């Protein structure tokens, strides 16, 4: 089969395309994990007992089984029959390996992300929720307007960590024949009979994607930082406390020159 020209240049392009697919896989799985994880976190912190139990079952299912097993389980147990069914009745063809990979990684990530957001919500003082209710917010309104904006900020560092883990877990999707970085690298290795250079390349691509994603999330963290509040508490930002002193002094002596605020 000649999927690629046997020149190394076109091989590089072919791998670049696989990198694109890995990015799509990660973005899709992180997003699915967010959609699944956020409500589960809210249920675990604020929900009724029976719903908390269901979430716990979900989380333990995905935490307790290796990704590799989950991939095969979903591929053969859910997506293969689904594809056969869709083809038979609707004539629709789906990208089976990709869909199975995104869904499995996303659902598994949802279990981990729910724990990230649960921790973030728990670290918020219960009083924030009570204060919102006391102002007439409904429970959902309090969650959406008061709890989530704060919990999501707190969760960014842990979320960046989840991104880097999921990115590297995604390499395992090659077992389903998803044409992402790893499966293309393996094909190259088989074609050119060069092991080490291609695996170094694979390592480099994953390293770069990790660096890029974490850098972007750090930017997001800085951008959404609440003035006067460090992402890990006030302790590392003594300037914030000094500012209070400045304000008080100004109140007593309006002619006093304001001390410039730290950037």
């Amino acid at each position, binding site marked *: 089969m000649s999927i690629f020209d046997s020149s190394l240049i076109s091989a590089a392009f072919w791998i670049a395309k696989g990198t694109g697919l890995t990015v799509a896989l990660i973005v899709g799985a992180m997003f699915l994990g967010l959609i699944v994880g956020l409500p589960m976190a809210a249920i675990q912190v604020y929900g009724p007992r029976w719903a908390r139990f269901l979430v716990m079952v979900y989380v333990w299912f995905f935490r307790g089984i290796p990704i590799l097993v989950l991939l095969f389980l979903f591929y053969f147990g859910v997506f293969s029959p689904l594809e056969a069914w869709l083809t038979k009745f609707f004539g629709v063809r789906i990208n089976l390996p990709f869909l199975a990979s995104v869904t499995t990684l996303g659902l598994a990530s949802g279990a981990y992300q729910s724990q990230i957001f649960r921790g973030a919500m728990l670290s918020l003082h219960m009083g924030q929720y009570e204060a919102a209710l006391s102002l007439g917010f*409904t429970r959902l309104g309090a969650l959406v307007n008061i709890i989530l904006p*704060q919990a999501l900020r707190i969760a960014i560092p842990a979320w960046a960590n989840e991104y880097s883990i999921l990115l590297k877990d995604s390499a395992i999707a090659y077992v389903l024949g998803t044409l992402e970085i790893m499966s293309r690298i393996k094909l190259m290795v088989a074609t050119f009979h060069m092991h080490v250079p291609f695996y170094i390349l694979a390592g480099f691509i994953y390293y770069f994607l990790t660096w890029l994603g974490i850098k972007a999330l750090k930017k997001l963290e800085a951008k959404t930082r609440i003035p006067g509040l460090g992402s890990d508490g006030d302790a590392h930002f003594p300037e914030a406390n000094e500012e209070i002193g400045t304000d008080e002094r100004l109140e007593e002596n309006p002619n006093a020159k304001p001390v410039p605020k730290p950037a």
Partner: protein
Amino acid sequence: MSLELNKVAPAVGAESETKRSQPLLEANRISKTLGGKLILDDVSLSLDRGQRKILIGPSGGGKSTLLKCIHFLNPPDKGDVFLDGKSAKDMSQSNISAFRQEIGMIFQDFNLFDHLTAKDNVAIALRKVKKQPKAAARARAMEELDKVGLSDKAELYPAQLSGGQKQRVSIARAMAMEPKLMLLDEPTSALDPELIGEVLQVIADLAQGGMTMLMVTHQLDFVKHLTDEIIFMENGRIVEQGNPGVLLDAQSNSRTSLFCAKLTQLSSKKWTPGNFM
């Protein structure tokens, strides 16, 4: 900052003696068990429009829990709360939210929303709960901040405010919702001594405006001028209640006066290891 206590207007409730038929707020035989322990045991109280009552008593006596039960943040196990004669017990979730909207609550540790500026802390419920347009809500927020003397701090975040300023913002936040009454849960006990005055001044202003209030506090010297009645709670029950002049009279030998004598004794005593015991 001077506290002009004597100018406080007489309670509105006292004027309308004739239409006493229905109190503004009535808590009827409330019981609450938390963690297997009976915290509130058959507690009843009522507030007429414009009345101000103080809850005092040793900690663990159930004062804060009572406020949370009245506000249905922590619904009572037994008993009911009536606001303007409407029972809160069997309300749907959305009606409970509307019920809470009519009762302002001030917390000991402020509970400002940390991700919002002072102005948006006041404006957010106007926007999201009362569905006011953003500009109108913010204008209203500025009015309320101005009333508590913080219009110049509107753009600061809670972490950039002092404790006293935070509590004043939280009062502005509650007042913006135009509640029928206010519940205050030890509004000054988390504050440095020199910041207490500014918050008490704001509370005195509220009282002057005729606001109906139920306040848990130990700042008795201050609040006894503002209040119509003192309610003393201990072990989840109301032990004594009555006119502050009577209950605080040292001669009366009331549980309240003994408790308060202890409070003043503690605050005036020189703290040496010897007399601490």
